[in-house]
């Protein structure tokens, strides 16, 4: 096919959008609606995933030293933790000295009777360690247990059960989202190819005429594909605007709800950082849906 023919067919497809205003409008709106639902679903998924990920990251390994641990034994543990920090396993850590531990317990237990037996000296020193990835926890904890200064029996705490619960939930959630996305995409392709099929059906006579004067299938098909792709892209752009508006509104509402319930560990993502990603996803889906929708609907009318 010659360059000028390609240009001609692209122009034909573009001007068909104007010429069939009503159908173009209907198709574009279908794309807008389908992608809008897709986008909201995607944003919900991103939000839940990031929140769970950050909860996972906030889980701490707590390590108590023996009350009688020597300065050398303490140094061994600190060295190991810092070495692991350089290796990228430990994200950050803080220590709680015997004095701090005593202060904390004193402010918690207002009743002085219970405090009688306690002195700064028989409080344990402790470490609170955040890992970069929860997957490192098993090895890390095993190694810590081998240090003589660490209270291996009760001293190491890590909320494994909570972590596993979160991960299990995330797995199920991702699965549900994937299933929903697939279903939504199938519905969208169906809706859009149906709408485009209407435009093609309205023009089947035109297609026949072109065939009768000797046009190749590709000559007839390409303007429709160009039209479908453009409709898909316009729909994607409009849907993106709609999504950004709706999401920003929703974000404000949810944030004020979270604040009033003091759920400050949860956070709703800003739209800005994911905007480009969302736009790309919309454009790609819009173009694919529009192009394939056209292709499918024009195909069966070419047989004359």
């Amino acid at each position, binding site marked *: 096919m010659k360059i000028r*023919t390609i240009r001609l067919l692209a122009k034909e497809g573009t001007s068909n959008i104007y010429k069939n205003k009503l159908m173009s409008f209907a198709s574009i709106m279908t794309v807008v609606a389908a992608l809008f639902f897709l986008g909201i679903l995607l944003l919900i998924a991103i939000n839940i995933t990031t929140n769970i990920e950050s909860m996972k990251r906030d889980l701490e390994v707590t390590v108590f030293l023996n009350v009688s641990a020597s300065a050398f034994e303490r140094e061994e543990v600190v060295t190991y933790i810092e070495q692991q920090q350089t290796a990228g396993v430990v994200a950050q850590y803080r220590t709680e000295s015997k004095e701090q531990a005593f202060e904390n317990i004193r402010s918690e237990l207002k009743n002085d009777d219970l405090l009688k037996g306690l002195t700064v000296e028989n409080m344990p020193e402790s470490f609170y360690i955040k890992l970069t990835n929860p997957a490192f926890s098993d090895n890390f904890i095993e190694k810590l247990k081998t240090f003589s200064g660490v209270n291996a029996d009760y001293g190491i705490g890590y909320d494994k059960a909570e972590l596993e619960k979160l991960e299990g939930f995330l797995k199920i959630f991702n699965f549900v989202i994937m299933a929903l996305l697939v279903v939504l995409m199938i519905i969208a392709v169906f809706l859009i190819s149906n709408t485009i099929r209407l435009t093609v059906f309205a023009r089947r*006579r*035109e297609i026949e*005429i072109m065939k*009768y*004067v*000797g046009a190749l299938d590709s000559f007839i098909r390409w303007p429709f594909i160009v039209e479908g792709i453009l409709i898909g892209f316009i729909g994607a752009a409009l849907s993106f605007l709609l999504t950004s508006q709706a999401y920003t509104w929703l974000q404000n509402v949810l944030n004020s709800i979270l604040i009033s319930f003091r759920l400050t560990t949860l956070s709703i993502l800003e739209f800005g950082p994911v905007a480009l990603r969302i736009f790309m996803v919309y454009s790609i889906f819009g173009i694919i849906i529009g192009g394939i929708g056209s292709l499918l609907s024009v195909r069966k009318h070419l047989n004359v």
Partner: protein
Amino acid sequence: MIRFVDTTKIYSNGVVGLKNCTVSVEKGEFVFVIGASGSGKSTFLKLIMHEEVPTEGEVYVNGYSVHNMPRSEIPFLRRSLGVVFQDFRLLPNKTAYDNVAFAMQIVEATPREIRRQVPLALGLVGLSKKAKAYPHQMSGGEQQRVVLARALVNNPAVLIADEPTGNLDPKTSWEIMNLLEEINQRGTTVIVATHEKDIVDTMKKRVIALERGEIKSDEQKGLYFNEN
């Protein structure tokens, strides 16, 4: 050039369109196909351009075997023909000019060729003034002439015309027929299905007469037989 060998066309509803038809048309001939309404004239022409396929028998056109043609060859067969359709078949949202230009665009003619040939073809059928009109803005006769211009514009080897004067007054009909004769004299094979007794009788061309799908007569310098 065109050859029917014992060709039969039975439509899906059982109606016979053409029956055991054996005939050939040589290069450069001018042929009238006549017969009452429903006698099979359009069927005859539709078999030539692969709008319909024969139920039995063979059809050869410009070196193509139309009776068992691969899908991919059909456009090339049609490009070797110029067709004036009984029902016009103009593209509704293109102007007269663009309809004619379309026939050249599909064969990937250069824009320069298109700019030169299209006005020429429209001028030939006397329609230069209506170049910018859309089909729904033109009379039946005017649309018919656009169709003729489109059929001519690529200089086809064979021109087939299904009642090209069906919607025209006698004067214009004669103009069209003279045009077809002129085209024929330049070497194009012309096949015309018609009802017009006067024209057939005056022009003294080869006449193939159909009756209920069968060839009743085939004569050089023939006359229009009574339709009853």
